[in-house]
């Protein structure tokens, strides 16, 4: 695994910081055809909102030697569109405000122009894919994986329920990254106690 090279990292306002959690590049070359881009985002100083950062660190280790890049940031911003346009697949990892704490949700992401955004510092994954396609002519096959949070209070550690979901999320992302032809066309939800349920879309 290589430690981050800044060329591959796109962040935002509001303060994307490493915060002791570096960005990672796990592919061995600096080619522009990174196969998978994994984006963990949220506020790492707001407990479970930092789930994407925690998952990103674990994935950087788990995917060492794979053709994948992991980046972490506070928010999704328009600059990410360029990076997305340069990869074949993308995974967005975030905390979810709804659901039973620790529940894992997985859904495919397709390009979709958002209806409006008065606050322009932040974007959503589908809007970013639309921007990547529109500006650079390509968007990756993408999925979002989120975990229902228990706490957004000040703190840099995860709640027990959300922490317990980390290994499963890492495993799911690794499996998806390693698939030759990923099937992104369904929504999956896993309760905190296992028993995944799948919803075709």
């Amino acid at each position, binding site marked *: 695994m290589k430690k981050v090279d800044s060329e591959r*990292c796109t962040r935002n*306002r509001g303060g994307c910081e490493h915060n002791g959690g570096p960005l990672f590049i796990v592919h061995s070359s600096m080619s522009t055809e990174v196969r998978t881009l994994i984006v963990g985002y949220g506020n790492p100083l707001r407990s479970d909102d930092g789930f994407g950062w925690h998952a990103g660190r674990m994935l950087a280790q788990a995917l060492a030697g794979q053709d994948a890049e992991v980046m972490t940031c506070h928010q999704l911003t*328009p600059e990410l569109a*360029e990076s997305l346009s340069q990869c074949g697949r993308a995974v967005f990892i975030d905390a979810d405000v709804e659901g039973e704490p620790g529940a894992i949700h997985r859904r495919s992401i397709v390009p979709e122009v958002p209806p409006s955004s008065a606050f*322009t510092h932040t974007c959503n994954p589908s809007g970013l894919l639309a921007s990547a396609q*529109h*500006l650079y002519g390509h968007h990756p096959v993408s999925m979002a994986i989120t975990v229902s949070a228990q706490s957004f209070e000040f703190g840099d550690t995860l709640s027990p329920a959300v922490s317990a979901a980390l290994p499963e999320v890492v495993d799911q992302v690794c499996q998806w990254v390693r698939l030759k032809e990923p099937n992104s066309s369904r929504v999956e939800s896993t309760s905190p106690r296992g028993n995944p349920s799948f919803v075709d879309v």
Partner: protein
Amino acid sequence: MKKITIDAVTRIEGHAKITIQLDDSGNVAGTQLHITQVRGFEKFTEGRPYYEMPSITARICGICPVSHLLASSKACDAIMSVRIPDTAAVLREVLHCGQFVQSHALSFFHLSSPDLLLGMDSDPARRNVLGVLEKFPDIARDGIALRKFGQQVIEGLAKERIHPSWTVPGGVNAPLDPAVRDRILAGIPDAKATLRRTLKFFKGVLDQFKEEVEFFGNAPSMYAGLVDGAGKLQHYEGGIRFKDADGKIVADHIAARDYRNFIGEATLPTSYLKAPYYKPVGFPDGVYRVGPLARLNVARSCGTPQADAEFNEFHQRLGKIVPSSFHYHYARLIEALYGAERMEVLLNDPVALGKQIRAHAGVNNLEGVGMIEAPRGILIHHYKVNEEGAITWANLIVATGHNNLAINRSIDQVARHYVDGKHLKEGMLNRCSAIVRAYDPCFSCSTHASGQVPLRIQLLAPEGAVLDELRSQ
């Protein structure tokens, strides 16, 4: 009397609201800008070791942490009473140039270009950066590339794009990797080309905004900015030059330690944002502007060839003193070009690769002031410490604060010209926000106390009459 509230002002850094009072005929009777945050850094840093201040105060903002890092580090240099190594000074300035490029790109392309490209009266649902992406993809790509370049400069030097800890009291904590220097240098030609292209575009559309130029903060004020001994634009070093509305220099080369002789600080009852003023004139008449427009108004030249060519054209077209705040956009693009050129000069100096990067010392002064030009204007960090180096008092004057009075007056001018309370249209109110955006304020940065935090609580009757009022003493 009726009141219109714009809450929140969008496409700015931080949070603000505007209130517009209408008289019975629907005409604007008055306006106010309210900054609704309070930060408190001056208070909660008391007792902290001075050398922690750069890292702590960088957290004031996620957009311009580099500015706070640099101003704070310079204040700490003064407390240590050291002259930092030449290499450290060069590297700090390169970092600063990277910030200017990314911050000015953010302001122009992401925040203000929707008004300029899509129109002040266009559909507000699409009048944002995403609307620009759809309709003007070439310009959007330029904006993304330029901001990314500036961010890469910061991250290449400081290893972190936001809140880096590389700038420290006495210098910087790591030398420049030659490979990073070469990578930055390789990106500069594209950055300059992008900025020249954007300037050409912007100059081409200026005539579409004649009315905005006329009424967007187009009023006399003083101007303040840092210049070197020859009067050239400075972002990292230099002293303050004040010019009056006619372009006459009224104070020059004011050192950081002397700022209090020239800058007073007032509080407003309706805002957490304090209001600095030019002390010899007094409050509130001593209003002055800072930032890109002010800097180009006070400087004799930029000092780099392409920026100077644009600087000369700017003044040939618009006059020796350019009073309209709409032209902050134009000035911002020239400054970004200067940032890219200046960066190139600094990185081509062999000193940039030196290994002597930090001076070490303890507390040699019980007081230190650091001053730089942040992208939005002059930034001052002033600390007092005890003999152990613990902070006993701190004062921050942030760029947006300097512009507080000018922004308020500009909103008033725009509202009185455009807002018709009986035939209200969204575009009228958007212009009240657009004039705020022209200053590129960073309100999350700017709310720092001066004395008692202003507080006013009013009890209003249903028809708006004030029944009771409580004010902080």
